[in-house]
């Protein structure tokens, strides 16, 4: 327990916390300029989320995929890779889970869901693995490749849904079979029909897995060594290339699972996308705000999900365009990335404290 506490020392938490506050202030200022009432806006945001059980449950539903894509981005980060491709991995994860959920028949209830989840995770892993392989073997920049694979994944998924899984006359697939569903009926009943599912539980377990794997296992040690200093890792006899592929593969599994949960637990079908859903890109923000630590990501996904879900209520209650929340999140990342600004903001407090000690 003591060790767990050490991760959340005051200093490591301070920057994100101050950044969040500064981000909300930036949002408030922009609302003021636009002629809106920021206090009304923020309070309607929070009262939306915490006002009734349905919305609270739906907020948890909103948070779940963000945890997964956040973990995906952070996992790659820890191995020194920038996985901007979580978006595409999330999409192919969805499609694989949908395909298995619809096409695979005759499996018993729990098993079918497990197979569909695994399919989603594997699809995401393989999609990210392509990027990892090209990076390792050919030295191509992983950022560019994964951006290209995001679009490729999007159109590939649309192609699969349109040609093999389509519900006649609709812009979406058929429903998955009930045996593949991971919804939790009794919990949804408790939360006034909010879409609760097992994916949330798995997401939390995934964060624990991330922590144990990265900091307690031999393989995690290798990944971190490669991430911090690839040359030293090579010197030490580690296979840097295979570690890059492994890191991207596991990272992609997280994102792919996130997509699978969304299909199996929330929608029970997959729509044909007109544009990218954005959950993977949001994962970048979640990872950064969570300082690339799995437990930090649980918190930051909760924050991100709350802000995003609440923003609908905000536009309803205070007439503020919900896009303001993206500005707030952008500002939060800005302050976290440019830590100098936060330190500059905090400086007076530190000085004050020192003076008090002298007195």
């Amino acid at each position: 327990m003591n060790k767990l506490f050490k991760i959340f020392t005051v200093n490591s938490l301070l920057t994100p916390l101050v950044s969040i506050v500064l981000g909300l202030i930036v949002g408030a200022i922009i609302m003021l300029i636009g002629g809106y009432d920021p206090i009304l806006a923020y309070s309607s945001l929070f009262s939306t989320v915490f006002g009734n059980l349905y919305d609270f449950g739906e907020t948890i539903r909103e948070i779940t995929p963000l945890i997964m894509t956040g973990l995906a981005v952070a996992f790659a980060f820890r191995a020194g890779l920038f996985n901007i491709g979580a978006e595409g991995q999330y999409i192919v994860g969805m499609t694989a889970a949908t395909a298995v959920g619809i096409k695979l028949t005759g499996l018993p209830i729990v098993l079918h869901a497990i197979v569909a989840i695994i399919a989603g995770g594997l699809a995401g892993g393989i999609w990210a693995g392509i990027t990892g392989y090209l990076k390792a073997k050919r030295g191509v920049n992983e950022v560019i490749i994964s951006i290209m694979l995001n679009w490729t994944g999007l159109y590939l998924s649309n192609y699969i849904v349109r040609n093999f899984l389509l519900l006649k006359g609709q812009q979406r697939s058929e429903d998955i079979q009930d045996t593949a569903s991971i919804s939790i009926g009794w919990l949804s009943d408790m939360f006034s029909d909010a879409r609760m599912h097992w994916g949330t539980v798995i997401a939390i377990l995934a964060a624990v897995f991330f922590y144990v794997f990265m900091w307690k296992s031999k393989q995690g040690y290798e990944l971190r060594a490669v991430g911090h200093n690839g040359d030293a890792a090579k010197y030490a006899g580690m296979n840097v290339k295979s570690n890059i592929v492994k890191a991207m593969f596991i990272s992609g599994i997280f994102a792919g699972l996130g997509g699978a949960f969304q299909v199996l637990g929330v929608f029970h079908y997959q729509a044909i996308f007109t544009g990218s859903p954005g959950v993977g890109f949001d994962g970048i923000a979640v990872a950064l705000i969570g300082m690339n630590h799995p437990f930090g990501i649980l918190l930051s996904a909760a924050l991100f999900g709350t802000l995003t879900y609440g923003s609908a209520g905000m536009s309803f209650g205070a007439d503020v365009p919900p896009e303001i929340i993206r500005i707030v999140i952008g500002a939060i990342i800005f302050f976290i990335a440019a830590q100098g600004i936060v330190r500059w903001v905090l400086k007076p407090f530190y000085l004050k404290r020192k003076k008090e000690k002298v007195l």
Partner: protein
Amino acid sequence: MDWITTIGQLLNTTLVFSTALIFAAMGGIFSERSGVTNIGIEGLMTFGAFAAGVASYYAEDAGMGAASPYIGMLAAIVIGLVASLIHAVASITFKADQVISGVVINFLATGSTLYMVKLMFEGAGETPLLMESLQKWKIPFLSKIPIIGEGIFSNYPTTYLAIIVVIVASYILYKTSFGLRLRAVGEHPSAADTVGVKVRRMRYIGVMISGALAALGGATVTLTTTSTFSHNTISGQGFIAIAAMIFGKWNPLGAFGAAVFFGFSQAIGNYFQLFDWAHDIPQEFIYMLPYVLTVIVLVAAVGRSSAPAALGEPYDPGKR
């Protein structure tokens, strides 16, 4: 079917699609040659597309007629300069991770442009349709030449401008003292510093030029293709432009070639229906084409890249 005309049209469409990419890729070059990674090109294009949509609309409203699109382009340059400052401050002054800072630009761009559109146009999701979008110019005499007359010399003024920008960028980078300094700062900042070149100032200038050019690129999409700004006016062009820059080895002429190639792979999709054998190709595969081609090209041609040596590294003169 008249093949001469078709090839001319294909070339013309290629250049139309390429124009935005060319501007943005040139922008990327100025930023990255100075040593600052700029993944925020996408967001800067979004800002530019937005500014063009809004400013042109108000200019039309004020009765400025055919001059309105040019007001839109000016507005795009201004907003691009301002938005790129955010990236510059974070990554140069505060030494933030440049990739993350670029992500911030992209976040702020999608958020704030739509926020402002809704604010300005009573909750609408896009700017009002422009009446006076840009018209194609036929260059006298030259436009009469077969194929390239139709293909090159009957195009939007922005396309001509883009080509001029490529030439100017090439001249600036390789033939002026400013270019020498800009490249020095991206290759070896402390060498530049010790001979009195202001590293941070050069990088600010590089990033801001990239903001102006990328935004101008975004503006051309609004002014020549969509005639309105909405959430998907800019969807991925910025990233393709970055790919063009890398494929072109951070060289204006190379990036120009790459941008035209990507423009072509987009344009060819529109012409597939002309071929009987192409009817069976699913539309999704045609959409995918530019992205898949980019991957193939990057894997096959570039390999380990010749990026500026100090790209992505904040300059810290006080480091011991």
